[in-house]
């Protein structure tokens, strides 16, 4: 009987301890004791880290914190697409819409702005009407060839990348204002038409480098 009286408080303490341990684990306040024993044990993926109980190993590489959640604020695929073809009030939404949903959400706005810039638009050198052209634009990622020349447009290759020297704005202007015939484009500054298919700036103000990091040094 006396012996049992001693056991009762001990049992009670153990119950309390178990309860506390669970609470602490659930709230992730203090990691499991094995997380500080200097041994990789349990389901730890590294020494005292990872697994179901310990802090992730990867959260503090070399003492540097890379943890946390990052939310999207801006994105760029092809150059100048959102600027020329997206209504200003929709650009923040455009920047935070995943590429696979851009066509469903923005193709109509792009088509409207295309026709706002060029009301007489009929087709371009790719043979696209306003719907087809704005649909291409709305798939706003940069296509990059695994092989061959990687260029936005070099007179031959079309949308296979973007090199530093590519005159991407002239290609945009050609598609928007130049009509179907690349050899006899509209809006080329002749026959009483304005010059709209090129801006008269065909290269960067500073030469690029032949090797990494390719970009010119800063001013």
């Amino acid at each position: 009987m006396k012996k049992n009286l001693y056991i009762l408080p001990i049992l009670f303490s153990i119950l309390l301890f178990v309860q506390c341990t669970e609470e602490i684990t659930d709230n992730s306040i203090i990691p499991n004791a094995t997380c500080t024993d200097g041994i990789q044990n349990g389901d730890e993926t590294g020494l005292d880290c990872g697994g179901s109980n310990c802090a992730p190993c990867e959260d503090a590489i070399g003492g540097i914190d890379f943890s946390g959640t990052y939310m999207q604020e801006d994105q760029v695929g092809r150059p100048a697409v959102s600027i020329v073809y997206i209504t200003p009030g929709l650009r923040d939404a455009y920047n935070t819409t995943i590429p696979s949903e851009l066509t469903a959400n923005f193709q109509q706005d792009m088509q409207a702005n295309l026709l706002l810039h060029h009301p007489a638009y009929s087709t371009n050198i790719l043979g696209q009407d306003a719907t087809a052209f704005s649909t291409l634009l709305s798939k706003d990622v940069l296509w990059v060839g695994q092989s061959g020349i990687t260029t936005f447009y070099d007179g031959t290759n079309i949308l296979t990348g973007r090199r530093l020297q590519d005159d991407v704005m002239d290609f945009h202007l050609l598609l928007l204002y130049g009509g179907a015939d690349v050899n006899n484009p509209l809006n080329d500054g002749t026959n009483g038409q304005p010059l709209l298919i090129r801006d008269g700036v065909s290269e960067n103000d500073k030469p690029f480098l032949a090797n990494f990091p390719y970009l010119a040094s800063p001013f």
Partner: protein
Amino acid sequence: MMNKTKLTFAIAFLGMLITAPFLLAGDHFDAPAVSGTSSDLSSFYAFEGANTNNLVLVANLQGLLPSGVPTQIAQFDEDVLVEFNIDTTGDLIEDLVIQATKRGDSMYFFGPVVPISTGLQSEIATFATQSKVAISSGTTDAEAIVATNNGMQFFAGARDDAFFFDLNRFNAIVSGEVTGFNEVGEDTFAGTNTLSIVVELPKSMLGTGAIGINPNAPTTPIYSIWVETKRKQ
């Protein structure tokens, strides 16, 4: 009587009217939420490297930095993650990412790696290949710091803005002031800098790409690539 909200809106709208011409550029200053911030992307480039087995990815941020003090004080933001997204199958969903973020005086890189999650929300894949390069602060090519790791090359720092365009003339056309460009234009971006992140990596790290994506090059295997900036919550 105009309440505070309406007044704020009116001022903001007036500001938009005044600055509207500057909102038309590569992706420079494109949208109110990111315009002029540390997450504002100005341009993205992707091309075959001098070594034709390699691909080069360039993300430019904070465009139109004037030379001198404005460029010297421009900083990468430790709360901003720059993420190259690479879709190798043609469904516009990223299959691989290369993540870059600044800590201290260096830019840290992770990947290429299958992302922890696709879409608008990211975590840094610290289990992936890790690389880092000291952020360059010099203004000459000799001072450009380049790091190599696992067949890849890395650079981070201020560079000349590679974008060129007669933006002022374009704005004048859009606003109806003039009817067309001049045969010899004026590069609005001449003499300005950006903060650049450059990665060169073997194409073999990205797989083969998908054919039938580009109707203008239907047999060429294509990677669909874009760059995002994401802010720590």
